[in-house]
């Protein structure tokens, strides 16, 4: 992978982290409301997967989708404005945090009812296959979503009709406060794919490069006509489920252990660890990502200055986004009605 790509990935990870932490602050200050589900800890998944995708591929996500949207290229401004419920938000303030959509960038929505992403993705893939187009559909979902009936129904249809869908499970081990061994008969989510003849693999979702590679080869198989593929990304969320959740059901040691594997540290570990302190890392057990990190530094693919510059850029982007959101006007009721009837056109109903 070239230097440019690597930098872009690191930048996206930094932006993701910064955007989310800022959203948390804006929530606390009352500028954002409703349910707010943040992504810190899981950045490697969104960044690795979406950098491996083509811009013509479709993306379907959940309520925890800000970062998928960002990495997909929706401007931070327009996402932040949406979180603020403003007119310049990507959904004009009608959808909010859990319902980001961007037609142009083929970001096909954040869905807040667990399990909805599956049939939507399969529908997009069906249309694509029917038109013999080369695009794939990337479907994000959590470990908890795997127990919803639509998972099963949709995977069966995707396999039966050999549809171009990449199922990406973000296994962060929790369905809100319920740990995976208490909600699923199998803790290895990828095993669920066996009932449908769908090739499946477990990937270290804290390792952005591994995520990237796995996605790339899965997408290649899909484009070659191999049908749906399934990737389980093992990852962790550092925060609670949403801003309403302190995450107290998790042992502190567990949270710490995963912080040590912070995906950001893959490329900048020695420079400036965002979460764990250097001592924490030193005292840590095996860190699956040290290898990568060292490899990258050894290859001299990045230096401290570059990272510093990136961070400043990212902070500026986020600051600008908040500023933009703040200044954007509230939508009026006539805009709500227009959104509802967006498709009516000249149709005479009565």
């Amino acid at each position, binding site marked *: 992978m070239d230097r440019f790509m690597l930098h872009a990935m690191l930048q996206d990870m930094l932006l993701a982290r910064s955007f989310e932490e800022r959203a948390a602050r804006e929530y606390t200050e009352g500028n954002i409301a409703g349910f707010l589900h943040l992504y810190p800890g899981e950045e490697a998944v969104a960044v690795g997967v979406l950098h491996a995708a083509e811009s013509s591929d*479709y993306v*379907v996500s959940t309520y925890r989708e800000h970062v998928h949207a960002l990495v997909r290229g929706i401007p931070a401004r327009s996402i932040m404005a949406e979180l603020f419920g403003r007119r310049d*938000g*990507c*959904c*004009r*303030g*009608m*959808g909010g945090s859990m*319902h980001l*959509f*961007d*037609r142009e960038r083929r970001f*096909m*929505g954040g*869905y807040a*009812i667990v399990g*909805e992403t*599956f*049939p*939507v*993705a*399969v*529908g*997009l*893939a*069906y*249309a*694509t*296959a*029917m038109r013999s187009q080369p695009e794939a559909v990337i479907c994000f979902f959590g470990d908890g979503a795997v127990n919803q*009936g*639509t998972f099963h*129904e*949709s995977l*069966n*249809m995707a396999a*039966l*009709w050999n549809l171009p869908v990449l199922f990406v499970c973000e296994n962060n081990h929790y369905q809100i406060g319920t740990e995976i061994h208490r909600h699923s008969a199998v803790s290895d989510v990828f095993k669920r794919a066996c009932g449908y003849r769908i090739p499946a693999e477990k990937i270290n979702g804290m390792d952005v490069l591994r995520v990237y590679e796995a996605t790339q080869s899965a997408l290649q198989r899909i484009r070659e006509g191999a049908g749906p593929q399934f990737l389980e990304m093992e990852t962790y969320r550092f925060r609670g489920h949403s801003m309403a959740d302190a995450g107290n059901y998790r042992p502190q040691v567990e949270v710490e252990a995963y912080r040590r594997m912070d995906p950001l540290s893959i490329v900048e570990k020695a420079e400036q660890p965002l979460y764990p302190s250097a001592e924490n890392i030193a005292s840590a057990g095996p860190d699956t990502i040290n290898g990568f990190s060292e490899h990258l530094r050894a290859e001299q693919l990045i230096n401290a200055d570059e990272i510093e510059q990136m961070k400043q850029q990212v902070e500026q982007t986020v600051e600008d986004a908040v500023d933009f959101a703040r200044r954007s006007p509230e939508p009026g009721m006539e805009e*709500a009605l*227009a*959104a*509802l009837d*967006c*498709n*009516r*056109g000249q*149709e*005479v*109903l*009565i």
Partner: protein
Amino acid sequence: MAQEMFYYQALNRALDEEMAADDSVFILGEDVGLYGGSYRVTEGLYARYGEWRVRDTPISEGSFTGLGVGAALIDMRPVVEIMTVNFALLALDAIINMAAKIPFMSGGQFPMPLVVRMPGGVARQLAAQHSQRLEHTLMNVPGLRIAVPATVQDAWWQLKQAIRSEEPIIMLEHELLYFSKGELDETADAIPMHRAVVRRPGEDITIIGYSRMALLAEEAAALLAESGISAEVIDLRSLRPIDWATCIASVQKTHHCLVVEEDCVFAGAGAEVAAKLAEACFYELDAPVQRHGALDIPTPYNRSLEIASIPTAESIAEAARRLVAEPPAAGDEK
């Protein structure tokens, strides 16, 4: 140019014509393909258009309806058949929380040219789980439209209109109407999709029905004529939106209104019609708006009880007679 045919054939023709005209139209549902559809509505289309455009699905209502939603996001025009309305309870998330809400939630970015067809109503001894009515549930959903064709002509018109519309539309077809005969005139000017029609003009009372009940109301009107009562019969044709103007004009003339439905009366489709007309025509009514619909019980398997649980032409006529004979008795829930 009118041609006699069955209701199911009119639907079949509408599908065939729209599929021929626009290759983004495709059908999916259980046994719609090779088998030809449980009520023959999709007969012949699999052979003509192939498996991708007439897709037999597994028994996965929630997801294949959701599949339709996904495909509609990128300008396909899916026509989902839910084998019967009874199974639509499994697909309501896709219909209510997805199809109806995505255009709005996305701030108007996404069309939803989705049609969901479902045969329903009380047929013949299909028992409680297969006699579910769902109109009341779907009516309360902003963003949806609902067509309820009662005739061969309307079945053809409304299905074609639904397929061409960019909004999500539910077609509630009645299981007992599929094999009813009527005229189809392809050259006639189409009535707008949600306009109500006066099926029979009259002076003394307005009887409002939809789907099979509109036909029974016409039969009832014939019975009433024998007893010297002139009933005006309105077929709503659509349950969302409802053509209030046609209803109000009629009630302003007759000063009496009976709403007939196959839904259970309590919180059924007729509640909206009655509540709205009682309000809009308050100063014109000589008697309360009354509802005549299904008994408040699950549908019994036993045939006599089944018949007794929903309106018949006779029971409609009887309810109308009581209503025009002022003051009416209270609480008529057949």
